[in-house]
């Protein structure tokens, strides 16, 4: 009887296999749980710290408002000293003392060299203040009434449009550092802040990273006000809301979000606001910082915030009900939420007629597929599924691979890495050398490697095709993420052949389906399926047929045309 029972008990090998089958998925599950919970605890900690700092700031604020030390006193020497204490050690801060015309009232202007408009200061501020301001007979009475003097100067002397009164030293100093000019007059307990800001900016140029054949040759610049002006200039639209935020704890920077009030989903706007307010970094150097700090999933290889230099692209996104984020100091505006299809679209699709646009769009999807899968398919065909190649092609592939000492994966890796290095090197080189180096490097490496028998000519074709396809994707960073995933696909292909490629594809799909950008599924309108949104997905239907805005964005007003 024992024997009979024992014969039903499986061998040790089976138990071992069972153990592996159970524990490996369990370990993977635990692993990712670990990452997620780590992220969460980190966030919690950050929140606590934030709360504490906020409380501290409030306390300090209360304290400072109680003590009157930081306010201007009206005593000229003391006031100048106060400002000098704050910023006087800086080389570019200038203090110019003078007497107001025909009197002996002492005054001083403080300004920042470089940021403020010197011509304006010389011609309109100093000239009018130092000229014949007051008649002799009025002198006495006005001198006694300090406040009256101030209004008099404001109303009758200074021909400057932007004038504010400032009592707080800290705030006035902040403005001076941005280029305003502070005017301190003896006997007056505040300063006049004169708007003399003249920021450095460059001309509007065609964006280099997003060139079009047809479309406006206009790109954003580094100046926020110019950029918002570009959006306003697009056309009269009273619904265009531009809301301002300050980001950066130490270096404060202006950031605006733009949306169309009557179209954009209020929940989306709230979400964007919330995420921007959660940025606590000390300095936001570029909109890339914002992008990385507000994106949904930092582990995903896909970009979840679109960046663009083109005002027309931004405006088109706004009209679809999306939200744009513009940061001072960078020409790159951000658009949220993003779906995968946006990365393969170009503004030109809408400017050209629908048939060529549709075909070009389909071509881009093909290019994306080639970028992602061409090398891995080559590897799986050459190393695993030779039966799937047409016989004559198999013969020529066999012939060309004769004498190649590496398996297909190594061969592919050598060439792919070489081409990535070439690309990176060509990017950083000075413009006149860049293309030459690319061509020479490409030709030499391709030709010589084949001659030397390190790689097969067909591999060179595959690699070249892949590289060219990856540049056919209009969004540069989308191309990068596909190129990155290509290597993963290659390893999968090397391990399991076509089966592995399909596994990889499924893995990618399951990730994409789960991924969301600001609450919008990343691969919509594929999943969730919305037939009406397919009009502007892989194909672009005629404009007459696109009468509704994309449903996935839950817009307030869904109709585009009647």
């Amino acid at each position, binding site marked *: 009887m024992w024997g009979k029972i024992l014969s039903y008990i499986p061998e040790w090998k089976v138990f071992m296999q069972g153990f592996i089958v159970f524990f490996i998925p369990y370990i993977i599950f635990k692993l990712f749980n670990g990452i997620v919970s780590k992220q969460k605890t980190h966030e919690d900690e950050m929140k606590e710290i934030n709360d504490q700092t906020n409380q501290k700031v409030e306390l300090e604020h209360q304290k400072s408002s109680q003590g009157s030390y930081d306010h201007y006193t009206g005593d000229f020497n003391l006031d100048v000293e106060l400002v000098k204490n704050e910023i006087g050690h800086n080389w570019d801060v200038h203090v110019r003392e003078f007497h107001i015309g025909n009197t002996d009232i002492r005054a001083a202007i403080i300004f920042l060299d470089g940021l403020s408009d010197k011509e304006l200061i010389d011609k309109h501020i100093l000239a009018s203040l130092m000229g014949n301001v007051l008649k002799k007979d009025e002198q006495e009475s006005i001198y006694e009434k300090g406040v009256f003097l101030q209004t008099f100067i404001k109303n009758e002397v200074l021909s400057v449009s932007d004038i504010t009164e400032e009592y707080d030293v800290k705030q006035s100093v902040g403005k001076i550092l941005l280029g305003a000019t502070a005017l301190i007059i003896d006997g007056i307990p505040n300063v006049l802040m004169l708007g003399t800001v003249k920021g450095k900016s460059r001309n509007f140029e065609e964006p280099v990273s997003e060139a079009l054949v047809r479309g406006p040759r206009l790109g954003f610049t580094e100046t926020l006000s110019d950029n918002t002006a570009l959006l306003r200039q697009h056309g009269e639209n009273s619904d265009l809301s531009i809301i301002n935020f300050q980001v950066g704890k130490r270096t404060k920077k202006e950031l605006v979000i733009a949306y169309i009030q009557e179209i954009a989903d209020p929940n989306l706007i709230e979400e964007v606001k919330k995420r921007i307010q959660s940025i606590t970094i000390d300095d936001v150097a570029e909109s890339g910082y914002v992008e990385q700090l507000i994106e949904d999933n930092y582990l995903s290889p896909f970009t979840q915030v679109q960046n663009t230099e083109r005002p027309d692209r931004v405006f088109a996104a706004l009209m679809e009900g999306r939200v744009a984020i513009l940061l001072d100091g960078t020409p790159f505006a951000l658009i949220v939420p993003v779906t995968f299809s946006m990365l393969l679209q170009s503004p030109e699709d809408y400017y050209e007629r629908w048939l060529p646009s549709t075909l070009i769009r389909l071509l881009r999807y093909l290019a994306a597929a080639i970028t992602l899968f061409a090398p891995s398919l080559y590897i799986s065909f050459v190393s695993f599924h*030779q039966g799937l190649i047409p016989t004559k092609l198999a013969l020529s592939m066999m012939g060309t691979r004769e004498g190649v000492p590496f398996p297909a994966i190594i061969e592919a890796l050598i060439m792919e890495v070489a081409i990535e290095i070439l690309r990176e090197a060509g990017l950083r080189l000075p413009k006149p050398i860049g293309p030459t180096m690319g061509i020479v490097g490409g030709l030499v490496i391709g030709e010589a490697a084949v001659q030397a028998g390190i790689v097969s000519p067909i591999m060179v074709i595959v690699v070249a095709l892949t590289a060219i396809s990856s540049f056919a994707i209009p969004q540069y960073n989308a191309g990068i993420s596909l190129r990155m995933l290509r290597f993963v696909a290659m390893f999968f292909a090397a391990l399991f052949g076509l089966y592995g490629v399909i596994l990889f594809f499924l893995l990618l799909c399951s990730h994409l389906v789960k991924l969301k950008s600001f609450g919008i599924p990343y691969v919509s309108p594929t999943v969730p399926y919305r037939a009406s949104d397919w009009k502007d997905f892989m194909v672009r239907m005629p404009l007459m047929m696109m009468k509704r805005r994309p449903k996935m964005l839950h817009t307030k007003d869904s109709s585009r045309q009647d």
Partner: protein
Amino acid sequence: MKLNYMKGRFKLGLLLSFILLLLTGCWSSKEIEDLGLIVGTSLDLETDTNSREESEEQEARNSNKELITITNQFVTSETTGSGPKEGKKQQAYKNVSETGDAVLPTLRNMILKNDKRAFAEHSKVIVIGEDFASTFNLKQTMDFFLRELEMRPSALLLIAKNHASNILESNEPSKIPAFQLVEMMKGHKKTTKIIPPMTFAKLEGKLYSEASFLLQSVVSENDEIKFVGAAVIEGKTKKLRGFLTGKELEGITWITGKGKGGLVTSFYEETDQPIIYEIISTKSKIIPHVDGENISFNVKIESEGRIAEHWVLSEKTFDNKFLKKAEKATEKEVERLVKNVLDKIQHEYQTDVSGFGTRLRIEYPKVWEKVKKDWDQIFSGVPIQCEVNITIKDYGTSGE
């Protein structure tokens, strides 16, 4: 502390998943240049006693049993090479033969003399020698090839007159005979002397039904491969019964109506000069008649075509009278072809290879149930009427 712990776990997990991937290795990975693609296979009956003694294993036992010789045509990375090099011309293929008493052991023995791994997924053609086909049951010997994972259902089956391994030899070293055979087979659309290709996909059905069928036969004359007629495989024994000549095969093609193109050469009655009729389309209908125990068939053949060439100088080509006469002459010729082949398959081979049984089964299933057991026998005594109707609808020659 907690963060460190998490980090450690993360690293461990990463390590484990990498190990998991690497442990699997690149299993069943084989580089294409290490393969020897089998593009063609021939099967022969071994008659040479010398080679029988050479194969040691068989010496001990079964020394009287028929042995089979399998020749595989390999194409490898070396034979395709990088184009023909200067001076010497390289042979584009490499034939490897091995003798044994069953298919698989013989194939496995080839490993002993071949450095390339055999890979049959690109196998195009299997040629069976005359002796082999008339000795062995095809159903039994082909079973291995039909069930082999690497074999494709698109592979062709041919019967060779004489030795099959000769077919896989070519006097032009740059050509691969197996591919040549496949390309030649495509000619069946232009001539009635080649039957529609018998692929493995179709063969399986034929082998498992009791019906007789035809296979294209091929011969190697002076190092030249040539299609000559067809081989008749008897349904019951699944063995080669005999061959049909090219002319006889034409008759079969007319009966089945499968001809998509081809020529009929007839002679003008009055002057005995040739008229060549080119087929544009053919239609045939086999109508069975059952009268009690007596079964008879009517074959109705209709064809449309053009006169592609004629040497009759005395007549006006576009004259309707001439065309009528030409039609008559062609009809007579086709009838002669059909009669000729019917005589041969009914009386000499006693096998039904042109689908008479199928029609009977469809139209009189009850009768078929009775006769299907020895249909080939009954078929040999069945009267068959033939009716040919040719329409010339196109002038292919100059004339007035």
